[in-house]
């Protein structure tokens, strides 16, 4: 059986499973559609939240970013897990006690202001939609590669699948589907990593293998990696090269953004009790940590494998020959990925070998001169292909490659579905029922939720075909927005006596300033060429647009406290509401109003 058939088999079987579960668990009432009737166990909920949270960015992209940068990209690891501490300590139990369906409902009630609720809805919609666009782009690329169809066709197939289970399933369908997706994606991520860790270090746990001895050389793995990359003129893998201030702000932005993303917070409304909301956050992080503790090992080991493939006899001997690449099955992955346009090499000096090195390094330029090299000949290695290509590079069995294909798609699809649910509830519950037509019937509300979901898929698919930028940039905007608008409002709502005017002013300031800062650096509405600044030389100090969410959040807090301090105190019933949210006693099932 060829690799294409095996991929198709794995992807097909996993999808049949997800769709089957979605049909089996079809939602009946509004309460079930949004919050699965609150009958979800913390461990189940944690697993589903983990699948929801770990998107194409975590699964497909992150290890590749770490592999080619090293220590400096630890920001992703710390940022995307550290946010759960904030969520567990500062938000989850209180929002569950509050007992409503959506994040904007909390903001609207706590700040006794339809305006606050509307601002929150707008922030949630913009953040979720931009995030889902990034996911759809990832869905398209992954489908295109594994089904060997064009990017566009891959995107349409993916959109159809997301539509099928998100629109017809609702939260309950999505919850159990996402449990299945978690199982598929975590196996797909860890199994190849275990194989590779065993090959290189003999240690079956990748996170431990990373700090073990590299068996072939007898040196510690990371030391070997540092040595081999510096010999080719690249920066030391384990050293800190970038700007420390920006690194701290970027980590903080990712953390706050995690705790402010609506599709993650919504999950904590679905557990039966306040105590379960606390445990649920912990279980979620357990399931996320399984991937995040493995990712740095995947990155480092892949970098070592790739470098050694191009320099099979060591960095001071001859590079790999074109003939070997064409004929040796160990190099088959290069031809496969070349078709996607995401990998490229060229024998520039015509010596029949492919020299992979950093041609910007002065020492390497010297060596290139004596050896007759004409620049780096591995001309293109897209970071996003690393995880998907990794099992092929390490020559793992074809069933592992098929499994990784299914896992990558599960990661992208599950997040897209969770985000679509957040979008549909924001439109039908907050916008239509909360504002435009409070008397809408339950049936009408459910219908409008599904229409909103379908509309969001169409918009996301369209923008996925013509993406406003790289998926990672789109995701960065989503994080910055959530960090700058939602998280501070929720936190102040629980921990302070900030009033309605303060909250609205704070959210608007955080949201608008962050959007403008990002557009100034990435182009207005992501139209290329309309940017006035570049992330390599940002407007404020060394703060890149991806790190600005933390600054936006700070502005939100400052403005909110200032405005609130200058205006009237909280009404008595809101003071009571704040006090009741702080104590678990008397938490009831969520109420619709």
């Amino acid at each position, binding site marked *: 059986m060829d690799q294409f058939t095996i991929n198709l088999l794995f992807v097909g079987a996993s999808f049949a499973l997800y769709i089957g579960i979605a049909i089996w668990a079809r939602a009946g009432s509004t309460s079930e559609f949004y919050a699965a009737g609150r009958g979800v166990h913390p461990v189940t909920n944690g697993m589903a939240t983990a699948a929801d949270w770990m998107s194409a960015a975590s699964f497909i992209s992150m290890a590749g970013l770490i592999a080619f940068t090293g*220590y400096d990209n*630890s920001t992703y*690891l*710390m940022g995307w*897990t*550290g946010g*759960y*501490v904030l969520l*567990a*300590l*500062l938000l989850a*139990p209180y929002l569950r006690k509050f007992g409503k369906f959506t994040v904007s409902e909390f903001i609207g009630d706590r700040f006794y202001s339809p305006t606050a609720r509307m601002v929150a809805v707008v922030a949630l919609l913009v953040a979720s939609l931009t995030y889902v666009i990034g996911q759809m782009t990832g869905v398209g690329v992954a489908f295109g590669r594994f089904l060997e169809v064009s990017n566009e066709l891959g995107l349409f197939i993916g959109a159809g699948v997301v539509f099928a289970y998100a629109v017809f399933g609702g939260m309950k369908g999505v919850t159990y589907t996402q449990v299945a997706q978690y199982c598929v994606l975590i196996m797909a991520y860890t199994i190849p990593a275990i194989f590779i860790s065993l090959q290189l270090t003999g240690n079956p746990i990748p*996170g431990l293998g*990373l*700090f*073990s001895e590299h068996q072939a050389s007898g*040196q*510690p*793995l*990371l*030391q*070997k990696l*540092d040595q081999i990359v510096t010999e080719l003129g690249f920066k030391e893998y*384990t050293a*800190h090269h970038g700007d*420390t201030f920006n*690194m*701290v702000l970027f*980590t*903080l932005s990712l953390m706050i953004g995690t705790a402010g993303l609506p599709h993650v917070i919504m999950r904590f409304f679905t557990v039966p*009790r*306040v*105590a379960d909301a*606390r*445990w649920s*956050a*912990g279980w979620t*992080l*357990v399931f996320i*940590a399984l991937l*995040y*503790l493995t990712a*740095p090992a995947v990155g480092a080991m892949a970098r070592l494998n790739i470098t050694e493939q191009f320099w099979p006899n060591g960095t001071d001997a001859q590079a790999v020959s074109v003939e070997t690449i064409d004929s040796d099955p160990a190099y088959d992955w290069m031809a496969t990925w070349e078709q996607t346009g995401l990998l490229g090499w060229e024998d520039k000096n015509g010596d029949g070998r492919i020299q992979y090195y950093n041609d910007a390094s002065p020492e390497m330029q010297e060596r290139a001169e004596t050896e007759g090299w004409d620049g780096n000949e591995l001309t293109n290695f897209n970071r996003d292909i690393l995880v998907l290509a990794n099992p092929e590079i390490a020559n793992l069995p074809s069933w592992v490659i098929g499994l990784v294909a299914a896992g990558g798609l599960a990661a992208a699809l599950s997040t897209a579905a969770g985000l679509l649910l957040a979008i549909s509830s924001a439109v039908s519950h907050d916008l239509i029922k909360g504002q435009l037509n409070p008397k809408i019937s339950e049936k009408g509300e459910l219908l409008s939720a599904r229409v909103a979901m379908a509309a969001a898929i169409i918009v996301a698919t369209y923008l996925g075909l013509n993406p406003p930028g790289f998926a990672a940039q789109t995701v960065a905007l989503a994080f910055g927005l959530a960090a700058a608008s939602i998280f501070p409002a929720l936190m102040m709502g629980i921990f302070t006596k900030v009033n309605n005017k303060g909250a609205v002013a704070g959210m608007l300031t955080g949201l608008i300033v962050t959007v403008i800062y990002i557009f100034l650096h990435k182009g207005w509405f992501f139209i290329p060429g309309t940017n006035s600044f570049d992330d390599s030389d940002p407007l404020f100090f060394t703060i890149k647009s991806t790190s600005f969410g933390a600054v936006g959040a700070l502005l939100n807090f400052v403005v909110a406290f200032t405005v609130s301090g200058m205006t009237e105190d909280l009404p008595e019933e809101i003071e009571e509401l704040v*006090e009741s949210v*702080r*104590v*678990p*006693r*008397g*938490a009831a099932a969520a109420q619709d109003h």
Partner: protein
Amino acid sequence: MSDQKSQSTKAQKKSDTDYWKANLRIIMISLVIWALVSFGFGILLRPMLSGISVGGTDLGFWFAQQGSILVFLVLIFFYAWRMNRLDREFGTEEE
């Protein structure tokens, strides 16, 4: 009768305030540890920890790529356990 009732409401309020203060204290301690392992050991204090070697690199690198995540896990479960105990101490748990 109504006097008794208002007195018990007052006692309840006082107990809830104490409960909240205890909660804030636990949150503060947890967040200090949270910041210390990530922003501290993982980034800002890494140069100071460079003398402690771990598997071919230093302790700061380990905290940035493994240690901080493990500490985050411990923190969340500690908080859940501690708060559930606090709920029982103050009688604030759900029925």
